[in-house]
């Protein structure tokens, strides 16, 4: 893709791309893109650090690198001797490997003793490490989350983790661009998660392949930062390289005073620059679509990819191809069936999609004064330790526990089920995470994705249900 000359109108993406070019793309070589922030976790980094040792190279910019423990970490507290319940010795070894690597190469690690430790895409924004105008990468596809701040943020593989550690740069061909304009306002009780699922359903799980998506329009402007992060987080589920939203006053108000942003006058100066990042009015996009956000209703997935979703209350649609048929078989559903009949065994609230404080508040609002159905197991896992403490300050943990659900320490947990928090074979989970692939939450697990409020409603009813049903059939406090 050829980028527009500088004098021409530029999109947010063009501006970020052009200002981070160390070397432009040529006929035979990709561009060299400078990376402002490199986020690191225990799963995809060990082999990256090995690459450095192999070549005897130091980490080029430790100060631009930030590490956390989240994927393999237990969410249950340590025993009385201080031992953490790791699922395997190998998981523990992986955590220790990151600890050693960070020590050896001088990288800031948010270890067990850090009050800020959290899921990498929750922690970065919370600390203010994520800022508008930055290029941000991480060995994790949901790095797209950070695009909510007007950053160019995308996931990379482990070899590339090694490249960024060594040279603070990446080799990249410029992706195409796409603008999704969301007109209208979201209705009552409709969340950013519903919006994201609606978009993926609309453009398909490969609808964004090869592209960076910018979200614009009234519905996007009306979202708070946490909701914007949820939307950008799910962008990868439409196959896109990255999702982004231009910084505005909402972005600036969220960032002001956070630990890693400039303080005082320097912040105001930075904010002024950030506001100029927005796409120029006549900027060019390779594709543009408009959707009516006011038509969206609370949504849940019924298949094995995030594009297979319906509004709560709708029937399971007809499978249009063999893959969809296979997905229905895996989920033990059939076309035309009412989802409301579907018994739910497990409910998971958490992840970098929906593990933030507003998500926990929404969950607690539904659970307050109610009990989850006796056959349901529900896990509520804050996205970071900061969020956990804030929630406990507000008494949300008590609401969750009183309802019969489990309150855990921060981590990825059941989102990808590599720490021992799993959905058993054949069981149905309603999950606020981002992927419903077969076996994602444990071999044979059946995942239905939804917002925190819908997930909580399903827990209370013990079957697929919306919040309105809970409110009409059960008294809260």
């Amino acid at each position, binding site marked *: 893709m050829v980028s527009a000359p500088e004098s021409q109108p530029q999109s947010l993406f063009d501006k970020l791309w052009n200002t981070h070019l160390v070397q432009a793309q040529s006929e035979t*070589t990709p561009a060299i893109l400078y990376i402002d922030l490199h986020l690191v976790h225990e799963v995809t980094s060990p*082999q990256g650090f090995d690459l450095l040792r192999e070549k005897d190279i130091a980490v080029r910019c430790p100060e631009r690198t930030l590490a956390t423990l989240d994927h393999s970490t237990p969410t249950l507290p340590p025993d009385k001797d201080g031992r953490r319940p790791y699922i395997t010795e190998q998981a523990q070894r992986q955590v220790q490997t990151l600890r050693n690597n960070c020590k050896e190469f001088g990288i800031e690690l948010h270890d067990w003793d850090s009050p800020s430790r959290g899921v990498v895409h929750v922690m970065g924004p919370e600390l203010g490490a994520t800022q508008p105008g930055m290029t941000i990468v991480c060995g994790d596809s949901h790095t797209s989350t950070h695009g909510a701040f007007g950053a160019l943020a995308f996931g990379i593989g482990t070899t590339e983790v090694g490249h960024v550690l060594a*040279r603070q740069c990446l*080799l990249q061909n410029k992706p195409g661009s796409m603008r999704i304009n969301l007109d209208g306002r979201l209705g009552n009780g409709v969340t950013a998660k519903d919006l994201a699922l609606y978009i993926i359903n609309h453009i398909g799980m490969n609808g964004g*392949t090869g592209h960076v998506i910018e979200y614009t329009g009234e519905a996007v402007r009306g979202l708070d930062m946490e909701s914007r992060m949820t939307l950008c987080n799910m962008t990868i589920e439409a*196959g896109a390289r990255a999702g982004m939203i231009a910084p505005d006053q909402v972005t600036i108000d969220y960032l002001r005073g956070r630990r890693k942003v400039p303080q005082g006058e320097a912040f105001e100066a930075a904010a002024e620059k950030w506001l100029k990042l927005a796409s120029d009015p006549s900027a060019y996009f390779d594709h543009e679509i408009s959707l009516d956000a006011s038509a969206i209703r609370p949504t849940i997935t019924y298949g094995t990819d995030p594009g297979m979703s319906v509004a709560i209350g709708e029937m399971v649609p007809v499978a249009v191809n063999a893959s969809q048929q296979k997905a229905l078989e895996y989920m033990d559903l059939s076309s035309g069936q009412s989802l409301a009949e579907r018994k739910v065994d497990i409910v998971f609230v958490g992840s970098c999609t929906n593990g933030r404080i507003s998500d926990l508040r929404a969950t607690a609002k539904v659970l307050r004064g109610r009990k989850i159905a006796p056959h349901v197991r529900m896990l509520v896992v804050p996205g970071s330790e900061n969020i956990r403490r804030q929630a406990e300050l507000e008494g949300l943990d008590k609401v969750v526990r009183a309802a019969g659900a489990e309150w855990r320490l921060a981590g990825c947990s059941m989102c990808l089920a590599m720490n021992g928090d799993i959905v058993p074979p054949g069981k149905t989970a309603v999950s606020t995470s981002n*992927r419903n692939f*077969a076996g994602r939450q444990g071999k044979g697990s059946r995942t239905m994705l939804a917002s925190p409020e819908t997930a909580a409603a399903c827990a209370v009813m013990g079957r697929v249900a919306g919040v309105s049903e809970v409110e009409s059939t059960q008294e809260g406090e």
Partner: protein
Amino acid sequence: MMQAFTRLTGNILVLAQENIDTDQIIPGRFLTATNFDDIGEGAFADWRYDDAGELVAGHVLNQARARHSPILVGGHNFGCGSSREHAPRALLGFGFRVVISSQIADIFKSNAQNTGLLPVVLKPEQHARLLQMDAGEITVDLERCCVIVCEESGEQHNWPFTMDPFARHCLLHGLDRLDFLSQAEPAIQAYENGI
């Protein structure tokens, strides 16, 4: 050091399902290793093994020919999902050198190129032809950027594919991209001085 790829004649193995995601290619529980040495053992583990941990008899990936078929033909939108490089590494570990589909997800594709697994995107009708063939020998030629298929009827196809020139260059010669980046160190420094 990445293994070079120039030209390969070998059997195809077809997994026709669309949207084969990275959680199918390598389930999350195999990600706790700190090296890629045995990663091939986890490839498609949830398809190859049943709930009791026994090999699923009759699954195409468990047939003897699977390990002798270096060319995987996957359904549309292959490799969607996570950025785990474990996915192409697991396919390499299992014995594949090429993945062919009518669409391959972005991050999977770049991870494949970085690790020496050749990702080939063919036109839908060509791809459909391979899905139908199900087995048999074809040639993938990276020097000429084409896939050569001889049908039983004797008909021969020569299907060109496009490939990013730099990725092709690195694959053909087994070159490490980090070396290329390292040569740009003066430009990186100049950029940093200008920030």
